């Protein structure tokens, strides 16, 4: 008889668990896609692509290695990139942050004009006209910003514009990565 009394509450228990599960699910963002490269601290994918600002020069993954830096994937067709561009300029100029750019599926000439017009926050810009580097990085939309450690491994990905709020997180990640590398 006692057993039966407990059994009566089993459906209620299942219902409650299911309710909690669905409740939590309501607040998850299904569009948030964790970066596989950042998750496994993978090194930058190998590439050999022209430089945007220095035509004729070929950039490889080795050119982006050496210090903790941001890698910003951008394009002139991307409105959000224009929104964040001023912020990136300030980061580079005022805070001395090293930012590399990947000009993603864009026309190099238009991109060069854009940098002339809106200033250039990038130490170097890789021309990824075909989107092959973007594919290897797992880019699914511009802008995306990655944190690279000094050995060129990818440590973090931010999707969307870099603004004050995003920079706070990025700054923390960069600081902890730099801390970790100091012997």
């Amino acid at each position, binding site marked *: 008889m006692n057993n039966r009394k407990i059994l009566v509450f089993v459906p209620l228990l299942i219902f409650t668990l299911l309710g909690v599960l669905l409740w939590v699910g309501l607040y998850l963002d299904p*569009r948030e896609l964790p970066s596989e490269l950042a998750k496994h601290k993978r090194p930058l994918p190998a590439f050999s692509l022209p430089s945007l600002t220095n035509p004729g020069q070929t950039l490889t993954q080795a050119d982006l290695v050496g210090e903790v830096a941001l890698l910003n994937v951008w394009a002139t067709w991307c409105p959000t990139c224009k929104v964040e561009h001023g912020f990136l300029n300030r980061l580079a100029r005022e805070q001395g942050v090293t930012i590399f750019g990947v000009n993603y599926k864009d026309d190099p000439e238009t991109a060069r004009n854009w940098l002339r017009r809106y200033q250039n926050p990038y130490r170097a810009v890789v021309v990824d006209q075909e989107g092959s580097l973007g594919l290897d990085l797992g880019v699914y939309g511009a802008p995306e910003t990655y944190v690279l450690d000094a050995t060129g491994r990818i440590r973090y990905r931010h999707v969307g514009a870099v603004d004050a709020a995003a920079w706070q997180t990025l700054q923390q990640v960069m600081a902890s990565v730099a801390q970790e590398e100091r012997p």
Partner: protein
Amino acid sequence: MRVFLLTLLLLPGLSWGAIDVYEFSDPQYEERFYQLTRELRCPKCQNQNIADSDAPLAADLRREVHRMLEQGASDDRIIDFMVTRYGDFVLYRPRVNGVTWLLWYGPFVLLGIGVLVVVLISRNRRQRVASATERRGDHGDGAQPDHRRDDGTAPPSLGPEESARLNTLLQQDSDK
């Protein structure tokens, strides 16, 4: 006029061909291409596979699948290629591993639990009926309802004379 109408009929065919055209050196590749692009999920426009999606990224991924097929890559290699870049997220048919085990086998576990519960309940009921008829001391066939009172005790059972009388009364009715 007839020529014009016939041309109109051909138009939908034209718009179809404009999406993207891939040539396959082996008809088997084509089949695998459609299979793979149906099972890979577009990271940009979620809830669409890369075969259905019009997003530029989906077109890139289709091109990549086609390129790898033509290079002779196996389905597993193509899927690995996508997963290392976009994660398990791109798989509409998740692989069986520690995380997805529940997803694949959970329903069968639930079904098993359900069957177990039904078996236990029916066995429990049969036992209760059997013990109740035993206590009453009559020759019930087990299908009799349980006439226990609210306090759980069985009603006082009939004596041998009483049940003999009850039986004659019941048989009287069925004779008619």
